[in-house]
C-alpha cells in the first residue's frame, strides 16, 4: 500500500512541477531538482528492493534508516544551497541599489543641464517674434 501512496505522491509532484514550469512560476535548475526528487520517489516506489540492496551493501541492518538519513541530508544540502543563492541575490540587490542611486543623480543633473541649455534658444525665438 505504502508503495502505491509514494508512487501517487511522486506522480503528483512531477505533474505539479511540469505545470509550474509551463506557467512560468519555476525555472531551470529548481525545476530539474524537483523533477529528480519526483523521479526518485517513483522509481523507489516501483522497486523498493533498491533500498534493501544498497543498505545490505553498506552494512545497514534496518534499511528504512538509510532512506531517512539520505532524504534528511538531501533536504539539508538543498537548504544550504538555497541560502547561498539568497546571499548572491542579496549582494546583487545591494549593488544594484547603490548603482541606481548614483545613476539617478547623474540623470537628474543631465536633465537639469539639458533644460538649462534649451531655455536660451526659446527666449531668443520669443524676442525675435516680439
Amino acid at each position: 500500500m505504502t508503495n502505491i501512496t509514494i508512487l501517487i505522491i511522486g506522480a503528483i509532484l512531477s505533474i505539479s512541477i511540469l505545470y509550474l514550469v509551463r506557467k512560468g512560476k519555476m525555472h531551470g535548475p529548481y525545476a530539474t531538482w524537483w523533477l529528480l526528487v519526483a523521479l526518485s520517489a517513483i522509481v523507489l516506489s516501483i522497486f523498493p528492493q533498491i533500498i534493501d540492496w544498497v543498505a545490505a551493501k553498506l552494512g545497514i541492518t534496518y534499511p528504512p534508516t538509510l532512506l531517512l538519513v539520505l532524504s534528511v541530508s538531501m533536504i539539508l544540502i538543498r537548504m544550504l544551497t538555497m541560502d547561498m543563492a539568497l546571499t548572491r541575490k542579496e549582494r546583487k540587490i545591494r549593488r544594484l541599489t547603490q548603482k541606481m542611486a548614483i545613476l539617478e543623480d547623474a540623470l537628474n543633473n543631465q536633465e537639469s543641464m539639458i533644460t538649462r541649455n534649451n531655455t536660451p534658444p526659446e527666449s531668443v525665438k520669443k524676442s525675435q517674434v516680439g
Partner: protein
Amino acid sequence: MKTLIVIPAFNEATNLTRLLPELIKTVNFDIVVINDASTDDTAQVVCEHGVKCFTLPLQLGAWGATQTGIRYAARKGYSQVITMDADGQHLPIEVNALMKRYRESSNNVIIGTFPSRLSYLKKLAWKFFKFLTHIKIEDLTSGFRLYDKQAIQVLSSKQASMLDYQDVGVLLLLLRAGLTINEVPVKMKDRSDGKSRVFSSWLVVLKYMVQTTTLCIANIGKRRTQ
C-alpha cells in the same frame, strides 16, 4: 588629489541642517550625502544646501550607504574618501586632523578615534574582537575615517558588499588586502539627536555580536589576497 566626504544619513534632516553649513565653511572638499531611504526630508535639506545627494531606493544600512559613496569615488577617480556620521558626532574641524595624519604617515587608512567615549561593555566587546582578529586599533567602530585610493578600490569590490557593519569586517578586508591602518585621536561631540545605529537595543547588540563573532572566526588564518 581630489577628496570626497561621504556622509551616510538615515532620517537626519535636523542634524544635517546643523552639520552641512559648518562643514561647507570648514573644508573645501566635495561632499556627498547618501540618503538611506529616509522617511523625513533629508534629501530636501541636503539639496537646499547645494550638496550632492544620492537617495537609495531600498534601505541598505550604514555600511551599504557608505559603500555607495565609495563606489562613486572610485568611479570619479577621487584619491581620498573621508566618511563621517550625519548626527554631528564628528566635528568638521577634525577632518583636517585626519588629512594631516594621512600626509605625515604613509598609511592607507586613517581612523579618527575618541576612546574615552566608550562604555565598559563596549570596551569589553572590542577586547573580545581584537583578541579574535588581532587588529591593533583602539576604536573599532568609529565611522570617522579616511580611505586612500587603494582602500577605495578594496572597499568598492563585490566582496565588501556582503558586509553588514562597517567596523570589524571592513578592517579585516583592508588588512587582508595588505593595507595599513593608523589612527589619530580626535574630539567628538555627544550625539545631539537620535540614537546609535549599532548599540540601540539589546536584541540589536546581540545580533551584532553574533554576526561579527562569526565573521571573525571565519576569517581566522585567512591569507592576504594581494
